[in-house]
């Protein structure tokens, strides 16, 4: 089974929010980077290979009645916006849940959505 793990930062401190990020000790910051690296190197994981710029840098495009509407920011709230993703191949959802629970964002005020991928 293939799963997409979609990460939302929520309230989690990230390098993009320097005030909160600086409140973490250097060890805590290093531990977060290490955790993300370990996850990316877990067997079965295909990292996204890209790093997204923060949600504040997003632009949302909609088309209504043939007119293109462009607005600043993500489609959802900043906290809910996609922060990153990875693909995971596993036997069942329990393995995907276990991996998701190790993603730092999940325990720091964010969330990880585990979405099964359509397979033909």
């Amino acid at each position, binding site marked *: 089974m293939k*799963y997409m793990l979609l990460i939302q930062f929520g309230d989690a401190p990230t390098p993009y929010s320097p005030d909160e990020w600086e409140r973490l000790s250097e060890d805590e910051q290093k531990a977060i980077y290490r955790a993300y690296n370990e996850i990316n190197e877990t067997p079965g994981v295909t990292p996204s290979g890209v790093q997204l710029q923060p949600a504040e840098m997003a632009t949302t495009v909609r088309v209504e009645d043939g007119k293109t509407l462009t607005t600043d920011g993500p489609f959802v709230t900043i906290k809910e916006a996609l922060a990153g993703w990875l693909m995971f191949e596993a*036997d069942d959802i329990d393995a995907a849940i276990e991996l998701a629970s190790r993603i730092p964002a999940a325990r720091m005020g964010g969330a990880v959505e585990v979405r099964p991928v359509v397979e033909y």
Partner: protein
Amino acid sequence: MPQAAPRILEQVFRDEWGRVLAGLIGFLGDFDLAEEAAQEAFAVAAERWPREGTPANPRAWLVTTARNRAIDRIRRDRTLAAKTRLLDVPTAVGDDVDSGSHRLDERLELVFTCCHPALPLDAQVALTLRTLGGLKTEEIARAFLVPEETMAKRLVRAKRKIKAAGIPFRLPPAHLLPDRLAAVLAVVYLIFNEGYGGRGDLAAEAIRLGRALAELMPDEPEAQGLLALMLVNDARRGARFADGTVVLLGDQDRSLWDFDQIAEGRAALDRALALGGRDPYVLQAAIAVLHVDEPLDWPQIAALYGELARLTGSSVVELNRAAAIAEAGEVEAALALVESLELDRYHYLHATRAELLRRLDRVEDARAAYERALELVQSDAERRFLEQRLAELQG
């Protein structure tokens, strides 16, 4: 072979449905296929057994027949084979299928699958009742006061999610077991509570599930504790209502209690305590058992409520503790505790406060409290009880 009486057949079907279905789901890896095969097997049995007599081993017969039906279907329809997790379509099995062993009893795997946290709670309840309880969709819909179509969609969506999201059919690994077991027990208790207010059939279903769980997990104190709790509370059901109103414990006609069930409950509690159980269901069971003892040991009941409150942090438990403290003779202390609780929308809080105020002869305050309780009460039987109490005050 002797002719099978219809009632015995019905009993066999009820007992065996969950086991047979669980075994099939384990074998086929698909809920719908398994359900169809099981239904066919039971239909054949219903037609044949009254004529030919019940087989020596009904379970083996049902499992064998169902498996063979499923295999037949898969052979005829290759697209179905892709749905199952059978690598090769097996040949039909004979009567020597090992039916007595626990290998075929995959009800534990089934209940953990039905109660997986990736499914919404209402779906967990519905699926458990449908697959383990064998209730028809229409029966479950009626029990939860939703249209049949709503319940049918709920079940379809749940089964679809199990497949699409890869919810596994197996026991959770040891490190996940405590949380997952708590979820399963919560579902069973939810089913019991839906039946507790009067719809006795669901309470009986919950107890059946509880018995199965206790049997399948003999070393889990909370499984024993939940079973004990349900048995003891259900045993008093016959005495709880009279003339459309609630009858308090102290006024209940004990001859209407089911003492065999109470004894079964005590035995389950003893097993739980012997296993060192001291978690919420075990504590609640101990409290329930103390309530059927004579004379009532209110200080001990209050102490157990205290332990339970510390574990759960529940204000409702504290309210119950207050009632026990009052019964033990400390009405002022009980009132003080009640008044410290933040449960303003809970009618039992106001009813309890009213009762305590009444005992302290604070009639005006008691009246106001009963009136507040009447604003919030839901059930007719409880409303009548409160109205009676209020009337006694004015008199």
